[in-house]
Protein backbone atom coordinates (compact mmCIF):
# COMPACT_ATOMS: atom_id res chain seq x y z
CA UNK A 1 0.00 0.00 0.00
CA UNK A 2 1.35 3.46 -0.84
CA UNK A 3 2.30 6.00 1.78
CA UNK A 4 3.30 9.62 1.47
CA UNK A 5 6.67 9.05 3.12
CA UNK A 6 8.35 10.63 0.08
CA UNK A 7 5.77 13.40 -0.34
CA UNK A 8 6.41 17.03 -1.11
CA UNK A 9 4.49 20.14 -0.09
CA UNK A 10 4.90 23.32 -2.12
CA UNK A 11 3.49 26.76 -1.37
CA UNK A 12 3.13 30.01 -3.29
CA UNK A 13 6.38 31.74 -2.39
CA UNK A 14 6.45 34.32 -5.18
CA UNK A 15 4.50 35.58 -8.14
CA UNK A 16 5.07 36.51 -11.79
CA UNK A 17 3.22 39.70 -12.68
CA UNK A 18 1.60 40.00 -16.10
CA UNK A 19 1.06 43.67 -16.96
CA UNK A 20 -2.29 44.89 -18.24
CA UNK A 21 -2.90 43.20 -21.59
CA UNK A 22 -5.63 41.65 -23.69
CA UNK A 23 -6.95 38.21 -22.76
CA UNK A 24 -7.60 35.68 -25.55
CA UNK A 25 -11.11 34.74 -26.59
CA UNK A 26 -11.38 30.95 -26.41
CA UNK A 27 -13.73 31.13 -29.40
CA UNK A 28 -17.13 31.34 -27.75
CA UNK A 29 -16.91 35.08 -26.81
CA UNK A 30 -17.65 33.95 -23.24
CA UNK A 31 -14.43 32.46 -21.81
CA UNK A 32 -11.20 34.43 -22.11
CA UNK A 33 -7.86 32.85 -21.29
CA UNK A 34 -4.72 34.44 -19.88
CA UNK A 35 -1.01 33.60 -20.03
CA UNK A 36 -1.14 32.28 -16.45
CA UNK A 37 -1.98 28.71 -15.46
CA UNK A 38 -3.36 29.99 -12.13
CA UNK A 39 -4.47 33.36 -10.78
CA UNK A 40 -2.80 34.37 -7.53
CA UNK A 41 -5.09 35.70 -4.80
CA UNK A 42 -2.21 37.05 -2.73
CA UNK A 43 -3.06 40.42 -1.20
CA UNK A 44 -2.34 43.10 -3.80
CA UNK A 45 -1.82 40.56 -6.60
CA UNK A 46 -5.42 39.64 -7.35
CA UNK A 47 -6.53 39.84 -11.01
CA UNK A 48 -7.67 43.29 -12.16
CA UNK A 49 -10.05 42.63 -15.07
CA UNK A 50 -10.99 45.59 -17.25
CA UNK A 51 -13.19 44.79 -20.24
CA UNK A 52 -13.57 47.65 -22.73
CA UNK A 53 -16.78 49.57 -22.07
CA UNK A 54 -18.51 52.35 -20.22
CA UNK A 55 -17.73 52.61 -16.52
CA UNK A 56 -20.02 55.58 -15.84
CA UNK A 57 -21.90 58.34 -17.68
CA UNK A 58 -21.52 58.64 -21.48
CA UNK A 59 -25.31 58.74 -21.91
CA UNK A 60 -26.62 59.70 -25.36
CA UNK A 61 -29.47 62.21 -25.44
CA UNK A 62 -31.28 64.32 -28.03
CA UNK A 63 -30.04 67.70 -29.27
CA UNK A 64 -31.95 70.54 -30.93
CA UNK A 65 -29.47 70.67 -33.82
CA UNK A 66 -30.39 68.47 -36.79
CA UNK A 67 -28.61 65.10 -37.05
CA UNK A 68 -26.78 65.65 -33.77
CA UNK A 69 -26.83 63.96 -30.36
CA UNK A 70 -25.43 65.01 -26.99
CA UNK A 71 -23.15 62.75 -24.96
CA UNK A 72 -22.74 63.29 -21.21
CA UNK A 73 -19.36 63.20 -19.48
CA UNK A 74 -18.18 59.87 -18.18
CA UNK A 75 -15.42 57.31 -18.02
CA UNK A 76 -14.64 54.24 -20.10
CA UNK A 77 -12.09 51.43 -20.11
CA UNK A 78 -10.13 51.20 -23.35
CA UNK A 79 -7.40 48.53 -23.51
CA UNK A 80 -7.21 48.45 -19.72
CA UNK A 81 -6.80 52.21 -19.28
CA UNK A 82 -9.46 54.35 -17.62
CA UNK A 83 -10.27 57.17 -20.04
CA UNK A 84 -12.24 60.32 -19.18
CA UNK A 85 -14.82 61.44 -21.71
CA UNK A 86 -15.75 65.12 -21.80
CA UNK A 87 -19.40 65.99 -22.43
CA UNK A 88 -19.94 66.90 -26.06
CA UNK A 89 -22.05 66.59 -29.18
CA UNK A 90 -21.65 64.27 -32.13
CA UNK A 91 -23.09 64.75 -35.62
CA UNK A 92 -24.21 61.82 -37.76
CA UNK A 93 -24.37 61.65 -41.56
CA UNK A 94 -27.50 60.29 -43.18
CA UNK A 95 -27.26 58.15 -46.30
CA UNK A 96 -27.91 59.92 -49.63
CA UNK A 97 -30.22 57.28 -51.06
CA UNK A 98 -31.62 54.91 -48.46
CA UNK A 99 -33.33 56.13 -45.32
CA UNK A 100 -32.84 53.20 -42.93
CA UNK A 101 -29.44 53.68 -41.39
CA UNK A 102 -27.83 52.75 -38.06
CA UNK A 103 -24.97 54.93 -36.86
CA UNK A 104 -22.79 53.84 -33.93
CA UNK A 105 -21.54 56.52 -31.52
CA UNK A 106 -18.07 55.59 -30.28
CA UNK A 107 -15.23 56.88 -28.13
CA UNK A 108 -11.55 55.97 -28.46
CA UNK A 109 -8.62 55.73 -26.05
CA UNK A 110 -8.09 59.50 -26.23
CA UNK A 111 -11.68 60.22 -25.21
CA UNK A 112 -12.57 61.40 -28.72
CA UNK A 113 -16.16 60.88 -29.81
CA UNK A 114 -17.00 59.69 -33.34
CA UNK A 115 -19.87 58.36 -35.43
CA UNK A 116 -19.56 55.30 -37.66
CA UNK A 117 -22.38 54.55 -40.07
CA UNK A 118 -23.45 51.07 -41.05
CA UNK A 119 -24.83 50.41 -44.53
CA UNK A 120 -28.23 51.89 -45.33
CA UNK A 121 -31.28 49.94 -46.48
CA UNK A 122 -34.28 51.18 -48.43
CA UNK A 123 -36.96 49.89 -46.11
CA UNK A 124 -35.74 48.24 -42.90
CA UNK A 125 -33.15 48.18 -40.16
CA UNK A 126 -31.25 45.01 -39.29
CA UNK A 127 -29.76 43.88 -35.97
CA UNK A 128 -27.02 42.04 -37.87
CA UNK A 129 -23.64 43.77 -38.03
CA UNK A 130 -22.48 44.67 -41.56
CA UNK A 131 -25.88 43.75 -42.98
CA UNK A 132 -27.74 46.16 -45.24
CA UNK A 133 -29.61 48.38 -42.78
CA UNK A 134 -27.48 47.05 -39.90
CA UNK A 135 -24.85 48.62 -37.65
CA UNK A 136 -21.18 48.79 -38.62
CA UNK A 137 -18.41 46.51 -37.45
CA UNK A 138 -16.15 48.81 -35.42
CA UNK A 139 -12.42 49.00 -34.80
CA UNK A 140 -11.33 47.11 -31.66
CA UNK A 141 -9.76 50.34 -30.36
CA UNK A 142 -13.12 52.04 -29.74
CA UNK A 143 -16.01 51.60 -27.30
CA UNK A 144 -19.56 51.70 -28.63
CA UNK A 145 -21.74 54.06 -26.54
CA UNK A 146 -24.97 53.46 -28.44
CA UNK A 147 -26.68 53.56 -31.82
CA UNK A 148 -28.79 56.10 -33.71
CA UNK A 149 -31.44 54.50 -35.91
CA UNK A 150 -32.70 56.91 -38.57
CA UNK A 151 -35.43 56.13 -41.10
CA UNK A 152 -35.17 59.07 -43.52
CA UNK A 153 -32.54 60.70 -45.73
CA UNK A 154 -33.89 64.13 -44.73
CA UNK A 155 -32.02 66.06 -42.04
CA UNK A 156 -33.98 66.38 -38.77
CA UNK A 157 -33.48 66.50 -35.02
CA UNK A 158 -32.77 63.02 -33.61
CA UNK A 159 -35.68 61.67 -31.54
CA UNK A 160 -35.16 59.90 -28.24
CA UNK A 161 -36.88 56.87 -29.79
CA UNK A 162 -34.10 56.74 -32.38
CA UNK A 163 -31.39 56.37 -29.71
CA UNK A 164 -30.69 52.75 -28.73
CA UNK A 165 -28.49 51.89 -25.75
CA UNK A 166 -29.31 48.33 -24.66
CA UNK A 167 -26.23 46.89 -22.99
CA UNK A 168 -24.37 44.16 -24.90
CA UNK A 169 -26.58 44.84 -27.94
CA UNK A 170 -26.09 48.52 -28.80
CA UNK A 171 -23.75 49.65 -26.04
CA UNK A 172 -20.61 48.24 -24.45
CA UNK A 173 -20.70 48.35 -20.67
CA UNK A 174 -17.47 47.54 -18.81
CA UNK A 175 -19.27 45.56 -16.11
CA UNK A 176 -22.05 43.96 -18.17
CA UNK A 177 -22.25 41.10 -18.70
CA UNK A 178 -20.58 40.19 -15.42
CA UNK A 179 -17.94 37.50 -15.15
CA UNK A 180 -16.35 34.96 -12.85
CA UNK A 181 -12.60 34.65 -12.45
CA UNK A 182 -11.46 31.02 -12.72
CA UNK A 183 -8.40 30.99 -10.45
CA UNK A 184 -7.84 27.29 -11.17
CA UNK A 185 -7.00 27.78 -14.84
CA UNK A 186 -6.26 31.49 -15.18
CA UNK A 187 -9.31 32.39 -17.24
CA UNK A 188 -12.46 34.46 -16.89
CA UNK A 189 -15.96 33.47 -17.99
CA UNK A 190 -18.68 36.00 -18.72
CA UNK A 191 -22.21 35.09 -17.68
CA UNK A 192 -23.39 35.74 -21.25
CA UNK A 193 -21.65 35.77 -24.62
CA UNK A 194 -20.24 39.15 -25.61
CA UNK A 195 -21.68 40.70 -28.76
CA UNK A 196 -19.38 40.56 -31.77
CA UNK A 197 -19.47 44.18 -32.85
CA UNK A 198 -15.86 44.69 -33.92
CA UNK A 199 -14.12 43.95 -37.20
CA UNK A 200 -13.44 40.23 -37.50
CA UNK A 201 -16.14 39.92 -36.29
CA UNK A 202 -14.83 39.78 -32.72
CA UNK A 203 -16.11 40.97 -29.33
CA UNK A 204 -14.71 43.88 -27.35
CA UNK A 205 -11.18 43.73 -25.96
CA UNK A 206 -11.00 42.23 -22.45
CA UNK A 207 -7.85 43.34 -20.63
CA UNK A 208 -6.47 42.21 -17.30
CA UNK A 209 -3.48 42.50 -15.02
CA UNK A 210 -2.81 39.39 -12.96
CA UNK A 211 -0.12 37.35 -11.25
CA UNK A 212 0.80 33.70 -11.59
CA UNK A 213 2.00 31.92 -8.43
CA UNK A 214 5.54 30.52 -8.26
CA UNK A 215 6.04 27.59 -5.90
CA UNK A 216 8.77 26.58 -3.45
CA UNK A 217 9.01 23.43 -1.37
CA UNK A 218 8.24 23.66 2.32
CA UNK A 219 10.88 21.43 3.84
CA UNK A 220 10.34 19.27 6.92
CA UNK A 221 6.57 19.26 6.44
CA UNK A 222 4.25 16.41 7.41
CA UNK A 223 0.61 15.41 7.94
CA UNK A 224 -0.86 17.33 5.01
CA UNK A 225 -4.67 17.34 4.87
CA UNK A 226 -6.29 19.12 1.88
CA UNK A 227 -9.35 21.35 2.05
CA UNK A 228 -12.16 18.96 1.15
CA UNK A 229 -15.88 18.83 1.01
CA UNK A 230 -17.65 16.51 3.41
CA UNK A 231 -21.24 15.35 3.26
CA UNK A 232 -23.47 14.98 6.30
CA UNK A 233 -26.64 12.98 6.58
CA UNK A 234 -29.46 14.59 8.53
CA UNK A 235 -32.88 13.23 9.30
CA UNK A 236 -36.10 14.37 10.83
CA UNK A 237 -38.58 12.06 12.50
CA UNK A 238 -42.07 11.94 11.05
CA UNK A 239 -45.13 9.93 12.16
CA UNK A 240 -44.44 7.07 9.81
CA UNK A 241 -40.64 6.95 10.08
CA UNK A 242 -38.03 9.53 9.14
CA UNK A 243 -37.25 11.94 6.32
CA UNK A 244 -33.62 12.29 5.35
CA UNK A 245 -31.67 15.20 3.95
CA UNK A 246 -28.04 15.91 3.24
CA UNK A 247 -25.79 18.90 3.73
CA UNK A 248 -22.26 19.62 2.61
CA UNK A 249 -19.45 21.51 4.31
CA UNK A 250 -15.87 22.40 3.50
CA UNK A 251 -13.28 21.08 5.92
CA UNK A 252 -10.23 23.15 6.78
CA UNK A 253 -6.90 21.92 5.39
CA UNK A 254 -3.82 21.52 7.58
CA UNK A 255 -0.18 20.44 7.81
CA UNK A 256 2.69 20.71 10.24
CA UNK A 257 6.27 21.71 9.64
CA UNK A 258 9.39 21.79 11.80
CA UNK A 259 11.26 25.08 11.40
CA UNK A 260 15.04 25.17 11.23
CA UNK A 261 17.19 28.24 11.81
CA UNK A 262 14.16 30.55 11.61
CA UNK A 263 12.84 29.10 14.91
CA UNK A 264 9.29 29.63 13.68
CA UNK A 265 9.84 33.37 13.54
CA UNK A 266 11.72 34.19 10.35
CA UNK A 267 10.98 31.06 8.30
CA UNK A 268 9.81 32.04 4.79
CA UNK A 269 6.38 30.45 5.22
CA UNK A 270 5.85 32.12 8.62
CA UNK A 271 6.23 35.52 6.95
CA UNK A 272 3.22 34.63 4.76
CA UNK A 273 0.83 33.89 7.64
CA UNK A 274 -2.72 35.15 7.20
CA UNK A 275 -2.12 35.47 3.43
CA UNK A 276 -4.12 33.72 0.72
CA UNK A 277 -1.69 31.25 -0.84
CA UNK A 278 -1.77 28.40 -3.35
CA UNK A 279 -0.50 24.99 -2.18
CA UNK A 280 0.49 21.87 -4.10
CA UNK A 281 0.93 18.48 -2.47
CA UNK A 282 2.70 15.63 -4.28
CA UNK A 283 2.17 12.27 -2.45
CA UNK A 284 5.20 10.96 -4.38
CA UNK A 285 8.05 13.45 -4.62
CA UNK A 286 9.28 12.19 -8.01
CA UNK A 287 5.78 11.96 -9.53
CA UNK A 288 3.52 14.49 -11.20
CA UNK A 289 0.22 13.59 -9.55
CA UNK A 290 -0.72 16.25 -7.07
CA UNK A 291 -3.47 18.07 -5.20
CA UNK A 292 -3.80 21.80 -5.71
CA UNK A 293 -5.76 24.48 -3.93
CA UNK A 294 -5.56 27.75 -2.11
CA UNK A 295 -6.54 29.21 1.20
CA UNK A 296 -5.57 31.58 3.98
CA UNK A 297 -2.60 30.30 5.95
CA UNK A 298 -2.98 30.17 9.72
CA UNK A 299 -0.16 29.16 12.07
CA UNK A 300 0.01 27.82 15.64
CA UNK A 301 3.57 27.52 17.00
CA UNK A 302 4.70 25.21 19.79
CA UNK A 303 7.97 25.64 21.72
CA UNK A 304 8.39 22.55 23.93
CA UNK A 305 11.51 22.25 26.12
CA UNK A 306 12.04 18.57 25.37
CA UNK A 307 11.09 18.33 21.69
CA UNK A 308 11.46 20.13 18.34
CA UNK A 309 9.77 23.45 17.70
CA UNK A 310 6.77 22.79 15.48
CA UNK A 311 4.33 24.92 13.53
CA UNK A 312 0.81 23.60 13.01
CA UNK A 313 -0.64 25.31 9.92
CA UNK A 314 -4.22 25.58 8.73
CA UNK A 315 -5.49 26.33 5.22
CA UNK A 316 -8.87 28.06 5.18
CA UNK A 317 -9.98 27.73 1.59
CA UNK A 318 -13.12 28.74 -0.29
CA UNK A 319 -13.01 25.67 -2.56
CA UNK A 320 -11.91 22.06 -2.20
CA UNK A 321 -8.46 21.10 -3.47
CA UNK A 322 -8.52 19.59 -6.95
CA UNK A 323 -6.75 16.52 -8.31
CA UNK A 324 -4.22 16.77 -11.13
CA UNK A 325 -2.43 13.96 -12.92
CA UNK A 326 0.27 16.19 -14.36
Amino acid at each position, binding site marked *: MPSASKGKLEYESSRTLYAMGALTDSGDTTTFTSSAALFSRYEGSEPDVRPNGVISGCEITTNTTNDTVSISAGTVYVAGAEVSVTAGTQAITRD*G*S*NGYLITSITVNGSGTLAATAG*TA*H*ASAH*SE*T*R*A*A*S*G*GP*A*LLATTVVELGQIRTTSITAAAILSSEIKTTRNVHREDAFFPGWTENDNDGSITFVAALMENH*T*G*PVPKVVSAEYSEPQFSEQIDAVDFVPVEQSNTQNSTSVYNGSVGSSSTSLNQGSFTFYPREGNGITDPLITEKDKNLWFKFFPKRSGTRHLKGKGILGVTRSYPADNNISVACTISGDKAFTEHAS
Partner: protein
Amino acid sequence: MATQKLVCVKAREAAKAKHPLFGEIQLVPNVDYDLDEAEIKRLGKSVELVKPAVASDSDEQE
Protein backbone atom coordinates in the same frame (compact mmCIF):
# COMPACT_ATOMS: atom_id res chain seq x y z
CA MET B 1 -12.57 57.99 -56.12
CA ALA B 2 -13.56 55.20 -58.44
CA THR B 3 -17.19 54.20 -58.45
CA GLN B 4 -17.85 50.86 -56.77
CA LYS B 5 -21.03 49.07 -57.76
CA LEU B 6 -22.77 47.69 -54.70
CA VAL B 7 -25.68 45.33 -54.99
CA CYS B 8 -28.12 44.43 -52.24
CA VAL B 9 -28.40 40.65 -51.92
CA LYS B 10 -30.05 38.31 -49.46
CA ALA B 11 -27.93 35.51 -48.02
CA ARG B 12 -29.40 32.06 -48.68
CA GLU B 13 -26.99 30.29 -46.35
CA ALA B 14 -24.20 30.98 -43.85
CA ALA B 15 -21.01 31.73 -45.76
CA LYS B 16 -17.91 33.85 -45.41
CA ALA B 17 -17.89 36.94 -47.62
CA LYS B 18 -15.71 39.98 -48.19
CA HIS B 19 -17.62 43.13 -47.30
CA PRO B 20 -16.56 46.35 -49.11
CA LEU B 21 -16.48 48.29 -45.82
CA PHE B 22 -15.96 45.76 -43.04
CA GLY B 23 -13.66 43.11 -44.52
CA GLU B 24 -14.39 39.43 -44.01
CA ILE B 25 -17.79 38.78 -42.47
CA GLN B 26 -20.02 35.79 -41.85
CA LEU B 27 -23.27 36.00 -43.81
CA VAL B 28 -26.42 35.26 -41.81
CA PRO B 29 -29.17 33.47 -43.79
CA ASN B 30 -32.14 35.66 -44.85
CA VAL B 31 -30.30 38.90 -44.04
CA ASP B 32 -29.62 41.55 -46.71
CA TYR B 33 -26.05 42.68 -47.47
CA ASP B 34 -24.57 45.27 -49.82
CA LEU B 35 -21.74 43.52 -51.65
CA ASP B 36 -19.78 44.27 -54.80
CA GLU B 37 -20.52 42.43 -58.03
CA ALA B 38 -17.33 40.37 -58.11
CA GLU B 39 -17.98 39.05 -54.61
CA ILE B 40 -21.59 38.22 -55.48
CA LYS B 41 -20.36 36.28 -58.53
CA ARG B 42 -17.91 34.39 -56.29
CA LEU B 43 -20.63 33.54 -53.77
CA GLY B 44 -22.84 32.12 -56.55
CA LYS B 45 -26.02 30.53 -55.24
CA SER B 46 -25.23 31.40 -51.62
CA VAL B 47 -26.93 34.77 -52.21
CA GLU B 48 -29.85 36.05 -54.26
CA LEU B 49 -30.52 39.49 -55.74
CA VAL B 50 -33.14 41.53 -53.89
CA LYS B 51 -33.08 44.84 -55.75
CA PRO B 52 -31.31 46.68 -58.57
CA ALA B 53 -27.74 47.92 -58.15
CA VAL B 54 -27.08 51.06 -56.09
CA ALA B 55 -23.93 53.14 -56.56
CA SER B 56 -22.02 53.89 -53.36
CA ASP B 57 -20.09 56.84 -54.74
CA SER B 58 -21.78 60.09 -53.71
CA ASP B 59 -20.68 61.92 -56.89
CA GLU B 60 -23.12 59.75 -58.86
CA GLN B 61 -26.00 61.25 -56.92
CA GLU B 62 -27.79 64.33 -58.05
